[in-house]
């Protein structure tokens, strides 16, 4: 694959591309679905191909094919050059690329247990253990149980016209348990999931208690919970909700392509004090084993930790080679492409708020009435408006400085810049356990997010009852 990638780069240069990069990707994945005591859906997938990106004059062209044959690769180059040339006259914001020193490297990240090294039947047996643990915990209240597992390995070669040639091997594994509990009048769901940049060792490390039992306990608790009230509250975020906040509300706004395009609310705000003192937010693709980690990004920039907010001040964005050139900034290794058929774009990896100093007991003790939001599920953001939404799988009322009655799942919505300023306590704890696939421009990327508990004033809670 290296020879093919080098060859296409050479041809691109000869045929007038200012810059070109070529990625070949070969992915293998398997998944298992265990449901109601049976492993009833087992799947496998193999995917390989080439993506060719060229910068011609002022415009990008990109073409891909699901083949590693030389003729198809050459056709991709032809197409990419033609696409760029057909579009160039209508470009108003000329494309650029940061000049960086070429890297030749091989980055093999061998998992402790490669996906293929554990027999399918052993994986099934472990998933059934998770399921049994949940069913034992929930008893007859559990009406449906579902455990899913997937793992995969990816080999990638990247070459560019600057002389970079990087060969990487990486793998990821994720396991999710869903327990549905019912009491005759209502159904509720409890979900737990784990994900690593690694292989089948996740099944060794994850115990039935932390996956199956916890999912069942959540579902059972929700059966006893009341609908959340509606209105504006002081809230305490569990680390999983803090993770959603930093990912959705801030992180997408800090992706430099959105900033450069004038879409992000962070445009022209570099150096401004945007968050409360004590709030620092990072994105780090170099944490060993974390779900969003890697060695090199899809443009060949080494992974690293980037600071976005430092003690309340906006200090940096997440850059690709293009946005780094446009902002005259250092590339941050944030350009990611889902596979060979996607262009690299700035993305988050493992995004988190740094630990603060306030113990949870003190945070809640000073609150007469509020809501404790737990179990972050999902969120989304409109970077253009600076409005975000986070969904909590469960919650509790806070009354008189103590946790009160449990509440059902509920979403919150607010404006990013208001919320960052309304943080008035950052916890002295930390958890990052929200592995998931983040979507942007039709591409998925493995990410994680987290942080400490935080307390935030004036958050709108979309509950079902009047306050």
């Amino acid at each position: 694959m290296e020879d093919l990638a080098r060859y296409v780069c050479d041809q691109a240069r000869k045929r007038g591309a200012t810059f070109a990069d070529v990625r070949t990707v070969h992915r293998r994945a398997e998944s298992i679905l265990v449901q109601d005591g049976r492993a009833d859906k087992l799947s496998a997938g193999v995917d390989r191909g080439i993506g060719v990106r060229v910068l011609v004059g002022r415009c990008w062209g990109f073409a891909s094919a699901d083949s590693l044959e030389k003729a198809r690769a050459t056709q991709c180059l032809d197409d990419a050059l033609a696409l760029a040339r057909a579009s160039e006259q209508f470009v108003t914001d000329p494309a650029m690329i940061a000049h960086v020193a070429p890297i030749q490297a091989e980055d093999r990240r061998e998992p402790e247990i490669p996906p293929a090294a554990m027999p399918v039947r052993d994986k099934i047996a472990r998933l059934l253990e998770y399921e049994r643990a949940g069913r034992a915990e929930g008893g007859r209240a559990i009406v449906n149980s579902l455990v899913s597992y997937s793992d995969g390995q990816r080999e990638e070669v990247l070459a560019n016209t600057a002389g970079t040639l990087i060969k990487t091997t990486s793998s990821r594994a994720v396991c999710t348990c869903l327990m549905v509990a019912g009491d005759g009048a209502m159904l509720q769901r409890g979900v737990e999931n784990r994900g690593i940049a690694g292989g089948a060792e996740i099944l060794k490390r994850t115990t039935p208690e932390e996956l199956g039992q916890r999912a069942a306990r959540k579902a059972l608790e929700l059966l006893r919970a009341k609908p959340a009230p509606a209105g504006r509250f002081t809230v305490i975020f569990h680390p999983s909700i803090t993770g959603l906040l930093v990912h959705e509300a801030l992180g997408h706004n800090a992706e430099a392509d959105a900033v450069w395009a004038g879409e992000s609310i962070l445009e022209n705000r570099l150096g401004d004090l945007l968050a409360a003192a004590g709030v620092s937010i990072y994105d780090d693709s170099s944490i060993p084993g974390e779900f969003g980690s890697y060695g090199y990004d899809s443009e060949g920039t080494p992974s690293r930790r980037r600071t976005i907010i430092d003690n309340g001040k906006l200090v940096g964005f997440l850059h690709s080679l293009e946005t780094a050139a446009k902002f005259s900034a250092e590339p941050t290794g944030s350009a990611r492409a889902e596979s060979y058929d996607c262009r690299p774009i700035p993305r988050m990896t493992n995004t988190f708020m740094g630990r603060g100093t306030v113990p949870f007991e003190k945070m809640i003790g000073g609150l007469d009435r509020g809501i404790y939001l737990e179990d972050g599920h999902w969120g989304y953001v409109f970077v253009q408006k600076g409005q975000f939404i986070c969904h909590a799988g469960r919650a509790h009322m806070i009354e008189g400085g103590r946790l009160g009655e449990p509440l059902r799942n509920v979403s919150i919505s607010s404006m990013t810049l208001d919320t960052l300023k309304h943080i008035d306590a950052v916890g002295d704890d930390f958890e990052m356990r929200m592995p998931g696939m983040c979507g942007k421009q039709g591409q998925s990327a493995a990410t994680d997010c987290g942080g400490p508990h935080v307390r935030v004033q004036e958050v709108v809670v979309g509950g079902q009852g009047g306050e």
Partner: protein
Amino acid sequence: MTQSESYLDICTVCVKKAVALGAEWCDVDAGATRDISVTIEKSGIKAADAGQGEDLAIRVYVRGGMGYAAVSGRDKKDVDEAVARAVALAKEATPDPDFQRLPAPDPAPEVDGLYDDAVAGMGVEDVVRIAVSNIQAAKALVGDVNLSGSVGLSVGEGALATSTGIALEARGTSIEAVFEALIRRGDDTGYYYDFDFGRFREDTSLDRVSEEAVRGALRFMGAKRIASGRMALVLGPLASYGLLGAIVSAANAESVQRGRSYLVGKLGRKIASDKLTIVDNGLVPRGMRSGAHDGEGTRRHPLTIIEGGALASLLHNSYTAGKAGTKSTGHGTHSGGISPTNLYPALGHETSAEILRDVKEGIYLESGEIRPDPASGDISASIDFGFYVRDGQIVHPVESAMLGGSVLDLLPRLDAVSSDARLEPGAVMPTIRIQDVQVAGAEG
């Protein structure tokens, strides 16, 4: 495997190989797609992309256990490995006595209008031309609008062969444009989007999609906070389509059979006011989700999902139909899932303007994601693109507001479906009104 083999030939050969390896039931889906897309950013062309791909997926059942393998490209070794892997996985799966059989052949003529030579013949220059028209149209309305989006087309063909004798071939085209307009004036922001799509070029008005996005962005300037309260909720065409689509998706027979859906025990019973009737019709000519057969080869028929407020039918694939002792409704996907097709809500007697005029206090939600929890039916959603309404008049866009409730409480309070609707190929999107909805605001 050679380039001259048809996809049906490839599928048929793979079925035979799988059966020889021990597959009791098997189906194979294979095809190719070709895509072109142009990305627009900062009101100019940003990039142009093209992709070509071939995919093959094989599903095998052994004693009811399912193995599935997918592969890109048509490399013979990869395809043979996929066949063998699917059979091996099916043998590893737990036997499932609920599995009955894959569908038997039931030939039907293909739905008209799935493939347009005009779209198939378009090149990147044509796609760029549409993008440029939209940029010019947007700038003519607001000179400093920040326009982004994409224009793209896809051309595909494929085949399905099964161990039961089904042999189908199909091809299709689609073209779409999506634009987002952003207008900033000091601290004020207006932002909105619009889109158009179709299988036929002549079914679309792709050159002026950006105009509606810009007009929307202007409408959403000056957003204000509102106080919490209970009020009417009027869902415009895009918002209503999202909610009604989510409800139809919840009528998935597997979710109901497994006991994890808020629609468990509701078949044949009222779940909404009698104003609500929704038909799923996969046979609509030129519909985006149309096709004579579903992903398993079951022949499709129009199906009434909700009739006069009652849950009239569930969406079945071959597995759930076999388990329930009924016929598949033709909503199976090849990977074993269940999916709705084109949704046609029955229209009412009041116009959308009349529905809004009768609102004393409420929210007009032009677009927003209302996703009921699939188990409990609870709704807790942001008012993404909404307006505050008083005495039948839109007063101002709202900011930082949400709505909450249970879908099973809200649907009986649905008191109007409009007589007019946004029409898209395979979609009818009316305006609907739901009374007495809890709204959470940031004011007060």
